[in-house]
């Protein structure tokens, strides 16, 4: 309990410091550029806009669709990344073939897939899932495959000696061992998916947090923009906390 309180209060101090840095740099920016337009970036207008934002039903429906997009994109990244991660982890042969092309594809900026996503998919919604998938699948593949490779060889031997089938080996030894790795991969993937969302919502859709940010930019409503930035930060933090909790819960090493 005391440790929890301690970490909470230091987190609180951190947030205060962040607010002060925001206010300070914002103040410098406003005073040295002699332009009132930047005043809206400061904490007080932004927090006021935040108050208006949470009363806006459009905001909440945007939160819902954006979460759904990230959710679906991540789910696809998980299904694809997890299965190929296991295959890559198990087979050295396949690994040898795929390392080079995978490193190549991984290094392509997810947003440069945008034209391909537009041309290839029948709807913009699918194009957005695809962009999220392309950005977030890599840490899942990498971590899952690494987890499988890190399994103690003696454990595998032991299971084999006791007569475990290949399937049993996978389910009873390899997967439980890999679970924490995979959750870490998923957590990294979430961060990336969340980052990709805003530029991906440039495309022909009419809802979402990224869409609202783009709207605020088009109309120079910077207080609203900052309020949206904060809410995206808060939502991202909440999602990350869930994953962090799961990671700790399934981390058998600590237990």
């Amino acid at each position, binding site marked *: 309990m005391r440790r929890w309180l301690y970490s909470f209060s230091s987190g609180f101090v951190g947030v205060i410091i962040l607010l002060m840095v925001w206010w300070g740099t914002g103040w410098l920016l406003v005073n040295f550029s002699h332009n009132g337009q930047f005043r809206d970036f400061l904490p007080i207008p932004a927090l006021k806009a935040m108050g208006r934002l949470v009363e806006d039903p459009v905001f909440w429906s945007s939160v819902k669709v954006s979460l759904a997009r990230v959710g679906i994109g991540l789910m696809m990244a998980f299904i694809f990344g997890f299965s190929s991660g296991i295959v890559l982890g198990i087979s050295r042969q396949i690994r040898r073939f795929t390392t080079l092309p995978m490193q190549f594809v991984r290094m392509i900026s997810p947003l440069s897939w945008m034209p391909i996503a537009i041309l290839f998919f029948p709807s913009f919604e699918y194009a957005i899932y695809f962009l999220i998938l392309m950005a977030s699948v890599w840490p899942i593949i990498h971590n899952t495959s690494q987890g499988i490779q890190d399994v103690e060889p003696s454990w595998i031997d032991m299971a084999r000696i006791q007569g475990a089938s290949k399937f049993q080996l996978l389910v009873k030894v390899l997967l439980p061992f890999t679970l924490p790795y995979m959750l870490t991969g998923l957590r990294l993937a979430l961060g990336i998916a969340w980052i990709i969302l805003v530029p991906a919502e440039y495309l022909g859709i009419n809802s979402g947090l990224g869409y609202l940010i783009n*709207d605020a930019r088009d109309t120079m409503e910077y207080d609203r923009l900052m309020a949206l930035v904060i809410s995206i930060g808060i939502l991202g933090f909440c999602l990350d906390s869930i994953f962090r909790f799961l990671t700790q819960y399934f981390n058998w090493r600590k237990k």
Partner: protein
Amino acid sequence: MNRRDFIKRSLSAAAVGTLMSPYTRAKQSETVRVGYLPITDAAPLLIAHANEFYKDEGLNAEPPGLIRSWSALVESFLARKFNVVHLLLPIPIWMRYKDKIPVKVVAWDHLNGSALTVKGDQGIHEFKDLGGKQVAVPYWYSMHNVILQMGIKKAGLKPVIKTHSEKIKKDEANLVLLPPPEMPPALASGQIDGYIVAEPFNALGELKLKARILRFTGDMWKNHPCCVVVMHEKTVDSDPVFTQKVVNAVVRAQKWILQNPAKTAGILSKEGKGYLPMSKETLDRVFLKYDTKTYGKGNLPQAIRHPEWNASRIGFQPYPYPTATRFIFDRLRETLVQGDNRFLKQVNPDFVVKDLVSYDYVKKAVLETGGPSVFTDMKIDSPWDREEVVEI
């Protein structure tokens, strides 16, 4: 659209797709799928949807899709996510003659509707004051780039495209490419000294940044085209009924906007139906504010120098005059752009004028929608001819 609607819709779309035999599908016309950028240039395509003019023509129309950059709009059009879009006039020129993409211009979307906006406190009043300055253009292949460079050259300056590290000389004006929404903030922060772009980003700069309009483009090239309505050549050739109906609806929307500018601003604004994210105040300025008291003689800079032209900030007239296509094509050859523009030398301008545009649909639509007297600057006795008036 929430997720459930989305799933329902995709399921029903899939179901319809499988049930319909190829025979019935061929008979049924396409659905109108409009793609647009958040600028007032899109107004006719949007008003035709808002007032259900497509529906009146017996067409199904999807809600128009908002895209934030020209490149993404062009790509989405290529992928046939959209079948009716507005593009800056020179864009279909390079699409058709450089990349060999079969597109057709079916009408002019609007007239004028752009301006050169500069910082209010820098003493920039004339083109010659742009020496040593940075000016942003929305697209290399744009009417904006063409007109801007004409003005710069006329003032005895040299348009250049230089990288950040190179020094800009006193007799040079440097051009940079920026997406329209990024222009006002870049002006505010001092990265650029001016920008030439479609509305409402000029009105936004005036209202939010106390920026000044150096010149309206419609005051330099009288009632010039800016965006044109573009469709796939395959559609235009294979489904003339559909094409005619689309053009009719758009032309009717243009007429309606001319008669109801304030209502148009209201419908498009975020307070109205929200087709554009801007406020009614900003859009009102675009559709209504073009007076000599604010912009004419005695003001610095003087944005309107030809009050006798009776031009408007944004006008509407659908007929794609060959003289204007020819003019912009010829000028484009002399305009500095980044990238490979050799294709401009390889095609014959007379051929382009005939080949790029479909004239019949729009002629018919104009005559059926009240005739030439309804639209901006169309001669009653010879509606299909005009002379290009250009005074920098």
